[in-house]
């Protein structure tokens, strides 16, 4: 018991120190900085005024979660597929995929969402606003994940492919059983960063009228005359992001089992 608690302390010591520092800073702000806290509270932490209004966030929250899950899934899927395709070094895929990556990394998210929603109907593709947001985010962030998976695959040494081939594996088996599991070790940290970005970028859905969290918070802000709803929504975002962070550190730990580099 003793030993395990000491281990725990050791593991989380940096988090603990950061926490203590933030706490000390807040104490300084509250008691020693001479600021007018009643005004601050009224502006930013006025939860009394929000009473009875929390239900308004339920359906936008579900919508954001839905957009997030689909976008993260498709962005990862696109990146994985395109990176695998590129690894075969076929000229056609090389050129088109590179073009896709360059193009979609330079389009602002908001522009793409507007284009997909308002311009695609002209070529006969009428997507509901939620789906056009999912499609935009998947395409945009798919460009990033393509590069991430590509560098992951490239990080695996050539000898691994040769060893797989010489055991009679075909290229799909080698990719699935040998290359990708090793690539994951390199891929997971930057992939996590991108997926968190996907979650936060869902807020641009408001430009095509999707009733998402930030838009709702800003509306309520006008009604109650306080920024508190935005603070509340930030907490919701934190809760959405938390599982992604936990999952990613789990996966990372698993790959550390076979390599301490």
């Amino acid at each position, binding site marked *: 018991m003793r030993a395990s608690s000491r281990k725990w302390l050791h593991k989380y010591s940096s988090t603990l120190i950061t926490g203590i520092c933030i706490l000390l800073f807040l104490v300084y702000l509250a008691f020693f900085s001479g600021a007018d806290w009643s005004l601050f509270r009224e502006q930013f932490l006025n939860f009394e005024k929000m009473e009875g209004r929390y239900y308004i966030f339920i359906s936008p929250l579900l919508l954001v979660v839905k957009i997030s899950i689909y976008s993260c899934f498709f962005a990862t899927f696109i990146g994985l597929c395109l990176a695998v395709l590129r690894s075969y070094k076929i000229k056609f895929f090389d050129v088109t995929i590179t073009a896709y990556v360059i193009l979609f990394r330079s389009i602002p998210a908001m522009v793409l969402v507007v284009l997909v929603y308002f311009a695609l109907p002209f070529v006969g593709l009428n997507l509901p606003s939620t789906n056009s947001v999912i499609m935009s985010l998947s395409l945009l962030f798919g460009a990033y994940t393509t590069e991430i998976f590509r560098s992951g695959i490239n990080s695996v040494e050539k000898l*691994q492919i040769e060893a797989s*081939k010489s055991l*009679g594996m075909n290229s799909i088996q080698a990719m699935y059983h040998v290359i990708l599991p090793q690539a994951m070790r390199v891929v997971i940290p930057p992939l996590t960063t991108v997926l968190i970005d996907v979650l936060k970028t869902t807020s641009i859905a408001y430009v095509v009228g999707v009733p998402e969290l930030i838009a709702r918070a800003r509306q309520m802000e006008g009604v109650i005359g306080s920024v508190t709803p935005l603070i509340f929504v930030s907490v919701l975002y934190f809760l959405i992001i938390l599982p992604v962070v936990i999952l990613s550190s789990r996966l990372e730990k698993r790959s550390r089992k076979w390599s301490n580099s």
Partner: protein
Amino acid sequence: MINNIPQSKAILSVVDLTKNFGDLHVLKGISNTFYEGEVVSIIGPSGSGKSTLIRCLNHIEEPTSGQIIFEGVEITNPSTDINAVRRDMGMVFQNFGLFPHLTALENIMLAPRKVKKQSRDEAKNKALKLLERVGLSDKAENYPEQLSGGQQQRVAIARSLAMQPKVLLFDEPTSALDPEMVREVLDVMMGLAKDGMTMIVVSHEINFIRQASSRVLVLVDGEIIEDGPSEQVIESPSHPRTKEFLGKLL
């Protein structure tokens, strides 16, 4: 001599094989036939094309021209299913090439399970026997990183054997090892030779050549300049370049 069986069946034939890397002519028309149960050593100075030759044999390197015929199948023919051919040809690399994310046992089990579609139990039983054969029963659950170089190379040999290959190719299997680990790998290889495994070995380990190898090919500048029984090539080489090279080696 353990494996002097010149009358046995041809298993692998090379006909006028060439390989260029751009303007560099690395193999300049190699022809040779390897027989069942033979242990052939390939020696030659650095850069002479030994690795390129052995890598062409299982088509990890694509030859520029010429034919390679394995058990009556022309591997150099583009319509040949090369993956199927490679199941019967094992290869052991200088730098082992074990899969770092799999344990020793899983390394050995992977190809039999996924390529030969063996059941988990069957593959595991066979893998455990192979680990015993290379003297590493106690390392089944270790990851490659936790093994010494000599142990890794023995696992790599066991991994090749798990596919029950008809011929085993080695590219300098002991030259990345610390001197004290060379012996344990050579012992395993000599055991295989004794059991009648057909082996083609790029190696300068003179003890291995003397004790286990029936024939020696001397490769210089992309050409086989000498081909004969090990004793004869080592004790009384006919080509001056062989003499010169052996002089540095012995």
